[in-house]
């Protein structure tokens, strides 16, 4: 850098930039947020690769690539500027893959990805405009279109009620619970401390990204410290599931499992930390976020307990997505200086 005499400063230099205030910026960007989400998903991805090996890699790669390509093609064909660089398509791809069972054929994953990006996101104009979480929309589409494939799991050792005698099943804990309760009216397994630990680490059946609660928790805490998410949504979501499940168990212990099971099984951890906290489709006010989390929790247990599907996290979040605009309206903060009479 060379010093220029002061007199030469104004006219000869290239034109200066003039904009409206503020002239400072925190440096936050959508790309940075998405990068943080991807980083936060890494532990869960490692866990997925550990438990499901090749299948996890296959599904994640398929979903990410097809999401990015779908986003690129959609933007191009609509003659709009490319938005692939903001990484939101990558996040959608990873989240969708995390919500798929390990044995799902690749082409189905691709169908889900394309639907998620094109119909649930780009038709509305791209990031920021989609009313529903694209990844969950992709999953629900696959769930209603290919119910058999979407509920085919790998094998898992059931912690047996009679200690020591383990059985092997190809159902998820929630699926097994539902079918056994419906047919025999009893709980198929004991849920003790050791099992809870096993569930937390991820040794159970489920979608590839949802099994390890611990890995997801690490990612969630990272997001919290990076201020990418507010605590209201995940904490209220998980707490509500816990409270609701506790109440159920207290009322009828013979047909209800412990709240710990509800929190650690299925997609609660993944949903609470990564899906329900999706900025675009969740409320903007803190009280709204709390309501959103509570609603997700209630609907999740409602669907698990009385609904036709064994797992309700996806549906619960999507239903709460749909009333997000109403929550925003209802929780609009009182503007400073309003509702106060001027002192006469």
């Amino acid at each position, binding site marked *: 850098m060379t010093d220029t005499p002061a007199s030469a400063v104004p006219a000869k230099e290239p*034109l*200066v*930039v*003039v*904009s*409206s205030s503020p002239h400072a910026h925190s440096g936050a960007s959508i790309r940075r947020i998405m990068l943080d989400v991807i980083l936060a998903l890494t532990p869960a991805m490692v866990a997925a690769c550990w438990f499901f090996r090749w299948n996890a890699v296959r599904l994640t790669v398929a979903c990410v690539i097809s999401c990015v390509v779908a986003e690129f093609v959609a933007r191009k064909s609509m003659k709009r500027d490319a938005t692939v660089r903001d990484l939101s398509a990558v996040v959608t791809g990873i989240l969708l893959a995390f919500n798929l069972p390990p044995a799902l054929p690749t082409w189905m994953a691709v169908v889900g990805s394309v639907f998620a990006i094109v119909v649930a996101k780009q038709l509305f104009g791209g990031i920021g405009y989609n009313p529903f979480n694209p990844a969950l929309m992709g999953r629900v589409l696959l769930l209603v279109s290919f119910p058999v494939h979407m509920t085919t799991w790998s094998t898992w050792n059931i912690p047996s009620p009679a200690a020591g005698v383990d059985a092997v099943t190809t159902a998820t804990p929630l699926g097994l619970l539902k079918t056994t309760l419906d047919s025999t009216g009893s709980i198929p397994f004991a849920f003790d401390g050791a099992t809870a630990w096993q569930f937390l680490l991820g040794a159970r059946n489920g979608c590839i990204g949802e099994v390890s609660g611990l890995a997801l928790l690490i990612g969630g805490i990272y997001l919290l410290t990076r201020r990418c998410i507010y605590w209201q949504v995940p904490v209220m979501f998980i707490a509500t599931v816990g409270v609701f499940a506790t109440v159920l168990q207290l009322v009828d212990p013979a047909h209800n499992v412990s709240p710990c099971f509800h929190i650690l099984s299925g997609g609660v951890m993944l949903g609470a930390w990564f899906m329900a906290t999706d900025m675009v489709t969740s409320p903007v006010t803190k009280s709204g976020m709390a309501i959103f989390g509570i609603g997700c929790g209630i609907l999740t247990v409602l669907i698990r307990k009385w609904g036709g599907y064994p797992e309700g996290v996806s549906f619960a979040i999507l239903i709460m997505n749909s009333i997000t605009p109403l929550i925003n309206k209802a929780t609009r903060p009182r503007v400073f200086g309003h509702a106060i009479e001027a002192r006469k």
Partner: protein
Amino acid sequence: MGPLTTALVVFTLTGIGCGAILAIAARVFAVEEDPRLAEICAILPNGNCGGCGWAGCGEYAKAILFDKAELNLCTVGGTETAQKLAKYMGVTVEVAEKKAAIVLCRGNAGNAPRRFLYNGVADCAAANAVDGGDKICRYGCLGYGSCARACPVNAISMDGNLAMVHPELCISCGKCVKTCPRKLIKLVPESRHLHVFCSSLDKGPIVKKACKVGCIACTLCTKLAPDSAIAMNGALAVVDYAKPITKEAETLVQKCPGHCIQQA
């Protein structure tokens, strides 16, 4: 009784019963309505298509009567309905000459340089509020296209940072005139093609620095134009569209040293 007769009897009785209920209700719950409402409804096509922007013809009639809605919004009825409505409402349909909007500026990117790089909302009013707009000329077109967005018939296109009106599409609604923060757009008779394409009230030397096309207040045109059809407003020559300019037009265009008198 055969089934046919039963059906007939039952339905006749039901019909009469329902009719009676409604007739009584209409009496009991009668609301006095403006009789003109029914008459306006009669003029409208009553297809309830909603093309006018209201939910059905009845609503549009109410809007005409109470909210002074415009009369030419019915797309189904077209001009005929509009004229009938105008006649009914006692509005004289203007027979004045058709006007078209025109942007009195030629300061496109090549002609009028900028004094800084603007970074912000691409809207003329917003840009004008940031340090007075990014063009050196403080009267010229900013080129952020607010008028083009305001135009209901897409008659304004942006051409090299300059708004251009396509007179054949213009419906002279005046929305662009209201939108332009620099008041560059005027409604002029469509038959007139000679304009002073500059709106700068600055003095000659400043205008010369700011734009290649600009009125430098030489007053030459005021002398050349017949019957003072071009007059000075301070340092700006302005065409008086009430007075004709015919054969002098070409000379004016050639002689203008600021190149701002042009035939559109």
